[in-house]
């Protein structure tokens, strides 16, 4: 898609999100607001890329949605429903637009309500994608490997719960938001992961949500510029996304150390670095920032030839202190091996509870690598076999098999 068309589509989605956030929060009925805007939004997506976005995109959408809004208000009256909240909300929107200011952006309320603890964790990310960006249920379903019907059902249920159970839209005091921010970040990161799980190298019409995830993270940093972890998440995703083009070559998995950096998106890396710098300046370290710093170090190593092994090990150590997940420990073990401390890495792996790692592919891959470093080839082979058995895709499987086979290229009599 050309830049101009892409910008027009992004404008349509942003205006839709802003208007939906406004109407939903005042009527407390997300589904009704979506329904009222759906035709107008569809028309915008069709015509704006051709003709360019209008000067006042929200006003355009509201005008185009007016008939549906009036119809809904009339229907509400005949059903003896109390306040036609949606119609009132629409009037308020018009009033807001008559002021000579940009339309208020209430998408923060939408992001937070999607990640409210009372909303089923599995539907938070889909809900964000549908309401804030206007993705359709079928497209979301495809990324999450469920049928469109099942995804639609979950989304309908979630929106109904918001209305019927009285989940509030208020994001009044910032202190109320802080404990709920991790859930929002996690939901945005899950959108990134959904796009990531799929076979790389497939055709362009394969669903990819990494762009949408980055959009949501960028939006969050605009709405909450003082939240360091928002910038950290954005940086982390930008670094990962920037390297996408080099991860496969003719279907083969290429490890980071072998990436052709000419295929990296240097602009996106620069954005990732800037986001990380902004995060650090806020002086509130957190797990996403640490993970972003690790990715930044990897990029620096490849692009500028610096030895970052000790830095990365130190960053992972901090990560395990503030976010002691299995992934963090396994990453730390790998980093220790890369820093010439394979023994320490192995000892760390040994502290992990077997039940928590037995089905974790990365654990076995790192373990195999470390055992190889320690010249324990037979055990390394067994670990590679475990990793191969747990591999998600062909390319990873083939790569691990190659590594395993390389172990055998030694004289017989090895341990």
């Amino acid at each position, binding site marked *: 898609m050309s830049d101009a068309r892409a910008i027009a589509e992004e404008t349509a989605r942003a205006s839709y999100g802003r208007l939906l956030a406004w109407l939903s929060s005042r009527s407390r009925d997300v589904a009704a607001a979506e329904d009222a805007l759906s035709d107008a939004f569809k028309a915008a997506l069709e015509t704006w890329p051709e003709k360019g976005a209008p000067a006042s995109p929200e006003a355009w959408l509201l005008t185009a949605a007016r008939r549906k809004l009036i119809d809904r208000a009339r229907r509400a009256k005949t059903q003896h429903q109390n306040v036609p909240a949606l119609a009132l909300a629409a009037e308020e929107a018009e009033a807001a637009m008559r002021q000579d200011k940009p339309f208020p952006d209430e998408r923060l309320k939408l992001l937070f309500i999607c990640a409210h*603890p*009372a*909303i*089923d*964790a599995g539907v938070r990310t889909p809900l964000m994608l549908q309401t804030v960006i206007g993705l359709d249920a079928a497209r979301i379903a495809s990324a999450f490997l469920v049928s469109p019907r099942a995804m639609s059902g979950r989304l309908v*249920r979630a929106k*109904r*719960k918001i209305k*019927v*159970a009285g989940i509030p839209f208020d994001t009044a005091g910032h202190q109320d938001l802080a404990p709920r921010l991790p859930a929002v970040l996690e939901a945005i990161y899950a959108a990134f992961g959904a796009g990531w799980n799929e076979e790389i190298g497939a055709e362009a019409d394969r669903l990819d949500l990494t762009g949408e995830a980055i959009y949501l993270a960028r939006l969050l940093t605009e709405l909450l510029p003082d939240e360091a972890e928002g910038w950290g998440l954005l940086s982390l995703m930008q670094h990962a996304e920037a390297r996408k083009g080099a991860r496969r070559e003719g279907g083969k998995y290429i490890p980071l150390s072998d990436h052709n950096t000419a295929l990296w998106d240097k602009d996106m890396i620069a954005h990732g670095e800037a986001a990380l710098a902004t995060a650090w300046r806020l002086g509130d370290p957190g797990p996403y920032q640490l993970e972003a710093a690790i990715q930044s170090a990897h990029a620096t190593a490849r692009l500028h030839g610096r030895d970052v092994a000790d830095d990365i090990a130190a960053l992972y150590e901090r990560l395990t202190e503030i976010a002691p997940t299995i992934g963090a420990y396994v990453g730390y073990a790998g980093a220790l091996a890369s820093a010439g401390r394979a023994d320490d890495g192995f000892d760390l792996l040994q502290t992990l509870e077997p039940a928590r790692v037995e089905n974790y592919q990365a654990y076995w891959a790192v373990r195999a690598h470390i055992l190889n470093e320690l010249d324990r080839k037979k055990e390394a082979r067994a670990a590679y076999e475990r990793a191969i058995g747990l591999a998600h895709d062909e390319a990873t499987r083939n790569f691990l098999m190659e590594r395993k086979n390389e172990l055998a290229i030694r004289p017989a009599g090895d341990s």
Partner: protein
Amino acid sequence: MKIILLANVAPDDFALRDDAAKAGAYMGEWYAFGNAMREHNIYVDGDALEAPATATVVSVRDGVRTVEDGPYPDTKEQLGGFCVIDAPDMATAQEWGAKCPAVKNGFVDVRAVPILEEGEAQ
């Protein structure tokens, strides 16, 4: 004695609430049940509950609060409403419980409600 009738509704019956064609007849059965109890002067109090998909579970352990969506097993009967009645004994309460529309595809739990004076413990 005060007795509570807890109507546990089958998932398919919950769906009838939103079925434009069948909701009228379904709700009609419930209104009839409620009216019958009122006419016999045994109805004290009662409410219908929104479907289980609107439920939220709260627990607190070691000072940490956990809030979760659910439960939502869409294969089991779930509480859909209740009423408190004033009946002379459990047997009478059971007779009334048997008339509840939930019994057809679900069940009704009949339980005595201890009467507490304000400030008194059971």
